[in-house]
């Protein structure tokens, strides 16, 4: 209940019957609102729940049963899907996790370093460089992706994870640099000054003084990097054409193209598996996700 409605009640409290009326009306309105919002939330989540149910059904049942109850769970859908392509999905998950792990380390390390320079240090062309960094957040990546592809191709690095990982170690995700920048600016400068008087250089100020305080920003970076890298499709599609190097999204996409009506169950099973890591990170990292987009205003 808001203060505004309480204030409104106080005004109408002069005549008691009206007040009683209001109270009943308000409770009813509240209940209706709860029901409508709950129904809407379930409607939003229904397709996902239906996918989970369908992953345990026979193909003939998927398109005739829109309910969520599974009477005869086909667990073999998961086994069939797992081994449906030339390599098992275990390999694709491993590939995805390798890329994600490197991406997280790279983003945390190099984006926070760049942010420290932009937030705390004085140097020539600071404004210009900062502006360029922000501008790149808004410019479509397609304008650099073709030359990048040509460069990696000339270095014979297509079908390796270098084109997917190295940019993360070069602070190319400006969103996170900006996130760290905002966070460092919120930390009191006295900390740096005190450390400086103690004779600490910038490296010590940053790694021993500030970095331990940046846990929330580090958490947000880790969670978002996980989500975006695990979900990344465009660059993985371009750089990985060797089935042994496939990641989960690329493998899944090939699965669909090769799938006939009869194997929809296994395909749904692998789809469900592919969003489980996202779901787990979402559940445990929600605090960081919410804080992250609230402080930076989203991407």
């Amino acid at each position, binding site marked *: 209940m808001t203060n505004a409605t309480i204030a409104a009640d106080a005004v109408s409290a002069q005549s008691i019957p009206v007040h009683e009326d209001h109270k009943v009306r308000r409770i009813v309105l509240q209940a209706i609102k709860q029901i409508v919002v709950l129904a809407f*939330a379930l409607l939003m989540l229904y397709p996902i729940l239906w996918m989970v149910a369908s992953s345990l059904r026979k193909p003939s049942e998927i398109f005739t049963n829109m309910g969520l109850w599974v009477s005869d769970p086909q667990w073999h859908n998961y086994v069939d899907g797992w081994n449906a392509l030339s390599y098992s999905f275990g390999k694709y998950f491993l590939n995805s996790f390798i890329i994600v792990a490197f991406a997280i380390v790279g983003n945390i390390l190099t984006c926070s370093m760049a942010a420290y320079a932009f937030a705390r240090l004085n140097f020539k062309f600071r404004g210009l460089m900062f502006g360029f960094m922000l501008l790149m957040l808004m410019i479509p990546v397609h304008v650099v992706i073709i030359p990048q592809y040509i460069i990696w191709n000339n270095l014979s690095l297509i079908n390796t994870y270098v084109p997917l990982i190295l940019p993360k170690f070069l602070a190319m995700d400006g969103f996170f640099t900006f996130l760290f920048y905002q966070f460092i600016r919120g930390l009191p400068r006295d900390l740096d000054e005190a450390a400086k008087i103690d004779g600490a250089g910038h490296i010590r100020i940053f790694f021993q003084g500030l970095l331990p305080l940046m846990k929330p920003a580090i958490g947000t970076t880790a969670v978002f990097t996980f989500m975006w890298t695990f979900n990344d*499709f465009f660059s993985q599609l371009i750089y990985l054409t060797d089935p042994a190097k496939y990641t989960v999204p690329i493998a*899944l996409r090939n699965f669909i193209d090769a799938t006939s009506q009869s194997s929809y169950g296994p395909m749904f099973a692998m789809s469900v598996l592919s969003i489980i890591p996202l779901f787990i990170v979402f559940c445990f990292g929600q605090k960081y996700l919410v804080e992250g987009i609230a402080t930076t205003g989203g991407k």
Partner: protein
Amino acid sequence: MSAASEFAVLLKNRGKAKDKATDTKPALGFLAPWLIGAVCLTFVPMVISLYLSLTKYNMLTSPKFVGLQNYATLLQDTRYLQSLKVTFSYVIISVPLQLIAALALAVVLDRGMRGLTFYRSAFYLPSMLGGSVAIAVLWKMVFGSDGLFNQALGLFGLDVTQSWIANTATANGTLMVLHIWQFGSPMVIFLAGLRQIPRELYEAASVDGAGKWRQFLSITLPMLSPIIFFNLVMSIINSFQTFTQAFVVSGGTGGPNDATLFYTLYLYMQGFGSMKMGYAAAMAWILVIIVAVLTVINFALSKYWVHYDD
């Protein structure tokens, strides 16, 4: 504050504050990774792609300079014009609808809603999963000829057997629905913004006899307008680059009948499918120009409806 607003402030103050150069050496150290990336992976590639856009290049023989021919060809390429149409209609319809849904839900949840944390998660989850291939697969199944959507219509006595994905008139619409479905992320931002609005404003308005709707129009909207504005800007920029869902749902073709031939999908087909790298580079630069022009227009219009405190 968002990156876009920070950038706007930076533009406004340009040349005013001189950068001192007292920490050049440590700055070079901390910025070294970014500087290498900015030069080798951003600046130089941008120059190369601008040059490539003026050439014919298939990655096998060396680039052949053709001047503005790629750009001229684009204007007569009916599939390219179709991709513009598809992308523009997607952006014009789904971006505002998504933001309206986000704002409406944020306002409803903000007013002392029970179970706020549950609802916030429930609405936020789709925007975290929405970009995945799995959800695109799901969408294909939901809107297929005997998919979940048609089954649900059956409950209301509507016997529809057509596939919404395979129909030229509705294929793009299913992707718009997918975009709107992911309203949770802007909703969370709006929720954070609503919490910043001082409660006293509402109390004062209420004492003056302003109703809920009136309060929304004269307090909530103006106070939230900077956040709405920057969400609009970034949402338009990102929606122009929609790729994964269109690619998966159409099986990489942009079909049926080019109905989901999104801009970046056509760019991918030209560049990485037909190896016309020069042509694709020209497309990329036009995309940058389109996005830049729309952003400038947005900023110009913002002074009529965005309220800043100062």
